[in-house]
């Protein structure tokens, strides 16, 4: 049972109207593994991670996290969408960090981190606050606990967003282009935090254009194009000896 994947995608398909954004995507993510999704814009990477916590519906296939079917249940041999309540419960186990941070602007950094554990999980505010301060220390923002998002730089906001997601103690963390909206000089501080998370054994699925990060931190890399997986391999294999011509062309275009 130890080898059962934490996240499992099986032939995931999705349409926006007539346009097939995901054309049967399958791969597994093991516990403690860091998987980076790379590929050109519009290849379906962002849509795919949004499907993993059911922010987007899928039209066929299955997504399992920790053995649980996400967003759907089986009913007489067919998949029907789950109740809002059950989907909300599943999402508590899946942390997500967005490209545009999406911090709550009316709450301080500390309150951004504590609000979900207190209001969703009903945990004691004093316990949650102590943990939240530890998390803010982990993302090196102890001195900004009382600041509102508008008073923080992009990199600081994104680190608060990471702490906010971690506060729910998720089984897996999803990152949707976490550094794409940042000023170049604050990209490093966010990547450093993510690197530390990876080293601490967090299971992470990261959509990224930061090839340096993917090469250094990822256990495996998934190359996507036009809604399909082009190839999957270890970071070393993908970056030093990509098997597919499409992947080689993608790297050539980056240089």
């Amino acid at each position, binding site marked *: 049972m130890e080898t059962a994947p934490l996240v499992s995608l099986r032939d995931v398909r999705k349409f926006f109207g007539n346009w097939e954004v995901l054309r049967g995507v399958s791969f597994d993510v093991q516990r403690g593994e860091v998987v980076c999704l790379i590929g050109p814009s519009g290849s379906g990477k962002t849509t795919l991670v949004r499907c993993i*916590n059911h*922010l987007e519906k899928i039209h066929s296939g299955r997504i399992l996290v920790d053995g649980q079917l996400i967003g759907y249940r089986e009913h007489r041999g067919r998949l029907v969408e789950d109740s*809002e*309540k059950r989907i*909300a*419960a*599943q*999402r*508590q186990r*899946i*942390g*997500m960090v*967005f490209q*545009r*941070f*999406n*911090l*709550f*602007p*009316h*709450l301080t950094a500390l309150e951004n981190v504590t*609000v*979900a554990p207190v*209001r*969703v999980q009903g945990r004691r505010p004093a316990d949650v606050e102590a943990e939240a301060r530890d998390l803010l220390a982990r993302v090196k923002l102890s001195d900004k606990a009382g*600041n*509102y*998002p*508008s*008073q923080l730089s992009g990199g600081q906001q994104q680190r608060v967003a990471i702490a*906010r*997601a971690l506060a*729910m103690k998720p089984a897996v963390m999803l990152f949707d282009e976490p550094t794409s909206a940042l000023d170049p000089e604050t990209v490093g501080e966010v990547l450093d935090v993510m690197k530390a998370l990876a080293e601490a054994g967090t299971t992470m699925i990261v959509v990224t254009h930061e090839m340096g990060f993917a090469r250094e931190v990822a256990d495996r890399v998934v190359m996507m194009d036009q809604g399909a997986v082009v190839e999957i391999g270890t970071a070393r294999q993908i970056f030093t000896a990509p098997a597919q011509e499409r992947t080689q062309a993608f790297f050539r275009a980056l240089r």
Partner: protein
Amino acid sequence: MTGDINIDSAFFLKYLFNPPAIVWRGLWLTIWISVVAQALGVAIGLLIALCMRSKHGWLRWFGRFYVWIWRGTPMLVQLVLIYTGVAAAGFYKYPDIEIGPFTFTGPLQAALIALSLNEAAYMAEIFRAALASIDKGQFDAVRALGMRPYTAMRWIILPQAARIVIPPLGNEFTLMIKGTSLLAVIGIRELFGTIQQLNAATFRTFELFVIAAIWYLVLTTIMGFVQKRLEAHYGRHDLPANAEIKPSGFRGLLSGQR
């Protein structure tokens, strides 16, 4: 021609600074009817706005229909229809209702119903616009954290909407205070009705209605002051880290009121 001017300044000053008890009662009635009707209007208006955002078609239809009806007919017509009309047709005779020490007479019940349902239509539109202006990423974030719709609304979405709602809400409340003067037509002795009654006994029309205008101005100005405080409170997260929050005082208070 100045000889024709007929102003009794002693009467004016007496009624302005030492009004009889019925003026105080009228003023108090105006204030509490406004506050209660506005509070009900905000609550019902929020529900209507949520209907208009529902995923159920019939609820969206109901919300739009509600707003269409209440915004498309005059307040005066609504008031007379709800009180006199409903009673005349025999639907409901408006018996007095006693709640604890308070007695709600028929006209009062009709007034609160009409004012709050009318106000709800305008508040619904204000809430709808405020909710629509909230960044879509906020809805992604609350869902990703596993929040149920009620929790998300209560702790994340509405507090942000409140800040957008406060300025138009202040406007609405100013209109509400002034609008209560219509209640005189169904026999409620609020401020305007009381002044009318005094006028019938004294015929000092100019003096009395200047006094009425002054009282309405006092109420709406106090309201403007409260509004500034609320705006500062809900806007606190927009300020740079070290800025202190100070109310803007009288500047802007004396202008921009409808």
